[in-house]
């Protein structure tokens, strides 16, 4: 265990914990758009910057991304120092210029007292904030169906060769986790449409709900060693089945 100070409060955290997690344990809210517990921290949005110093550092202090900085014995963290706030505000201002239409960014901007961007706004581009979550989650799932393309300000999220991605299994993880809802997904009449691909959805044999794509089901059965009929019922119905079975055993 390691002892450190965050915003004046002393806390203990397990070695290997990142400062962001440690702060969240103390209910200190540090914004972090590109962060997700299911994948490795990335350090791209830079919103989670905090100011750190240490008694042994001879007065030196600096800004680091708390999502990637591991806790250290004797670390002194300030999550909202003037330097942090100034830098964070600039980042939000820049994001607002890039994606003026994004509700999530507008909300963040309001929190930091920014009405509109002080920079030249981009016109005619979508709401992708390049947090990279969709790509990282897809790779984490094992599909890696999408990726970034290009670099610099022209960087964007793309399907390979800008064609419908063959490796996509229609799991929808990218759509569900996009902070700006920029990845469209439509489920209609038992068909899911995402990234210009159409997937047949399996209907639950109990309630009839179209709940998972055939490809996603096959993938999970293979990787988690499940019987092929496992996804014939949806999660909700499976829970009800298990509850009945349990009740039968216990004989309430």
């Amino acid at each position, binding site marked *: 265990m390691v002892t450190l100070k965050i915003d004046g409060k002393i806390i203990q955290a397990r070695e290997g914990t990142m400062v962001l997690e440690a702060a969240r344990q103390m209910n200190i809210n540090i914004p972090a758009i590109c962060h997700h517990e299911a994948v490795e921290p990335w350090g791209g949005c830079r919103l989670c910057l905090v100011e750190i110093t240490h008694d042994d550092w001879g007065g030196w202090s600096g800004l680091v991304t708390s999502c990637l900085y591991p806790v250290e014995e004797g670390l002194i963290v300030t999550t909202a120092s003037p330097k942090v706030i100034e830098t964070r505000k600039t980042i939000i201002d820049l994001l607002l210029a890039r994606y003026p239409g994004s509700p999530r960014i507008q909300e963040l901007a309001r929190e930091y007292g920014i009405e509109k961007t002080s920079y030249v706004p981009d016109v005619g581009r979508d709401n992708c904030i390049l947090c990279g979550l969709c790509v990282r989650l897809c790779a984490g799932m094992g599909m890696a169906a999408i990726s970034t*393309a290009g670099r610099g300000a022209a960087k964007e999220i793309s399907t390979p060769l800008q064609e419908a991605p063959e490796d996509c299994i229609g799991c929808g993880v990218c759509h569900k986790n996009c902070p700006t809802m920029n990845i469209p997904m439509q489920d209609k009449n038992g068909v899911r449409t995402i990234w210009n691909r159409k997937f047949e959805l399996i209907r639950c044999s109990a309630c009839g709900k179209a709940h998972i794509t055939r490809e996603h089901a096959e993938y999970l059965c293979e990787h988690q060693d499940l019987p092929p009929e496992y996804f014939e019922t949806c999660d909700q119905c499976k829970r009800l089945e298990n509850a009945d079975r349990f009740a039968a055993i216990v004989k309430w």
Partner: protein
Amino acid sequence: MSPKIDLKPAEKILECYPRDMTSLIQVLQDLQLTYNYLPREVLKRVSAALSVPLSKVYSVATFYKAFSLTPKGKKVIRVCTGTACHIRGANLLMDELERQLKIMAGETTSDMKYSLESVNCVGACAMAPVIMVDETYYSNVQPDRVKKMLDGKQ
């Protein structure tokens, strides 16, 4: 309908490298030189051969300046835009070339004769500003010489 791509040269190149991700950039370099660009079919073959997801191959192919996904022109004109060339007027040369060829830097003429690129420092700073047409260097180029240089090449 674009012509079918011969994958034999690609197979030959792939044979020279270990079949994993560390070879990706080196393989793409050799393919770019051989095919003059990176055709879709070739990228798909690389993905299968090196066991690298196609999305990753595409990401790398679009990140690095060495690679182009569209064919380059017969002659590649490179304007050095290193600092020494810049302060000796390289941007005026680029403007003039863009005007004469009617394309922007990074593009290829519709008749596929010329590709125009900027390059950072070819090491011939004593001759700034420098233009390369394929392997030939032109030194101390001034805007009035651009037309003559292109005419000489046409």
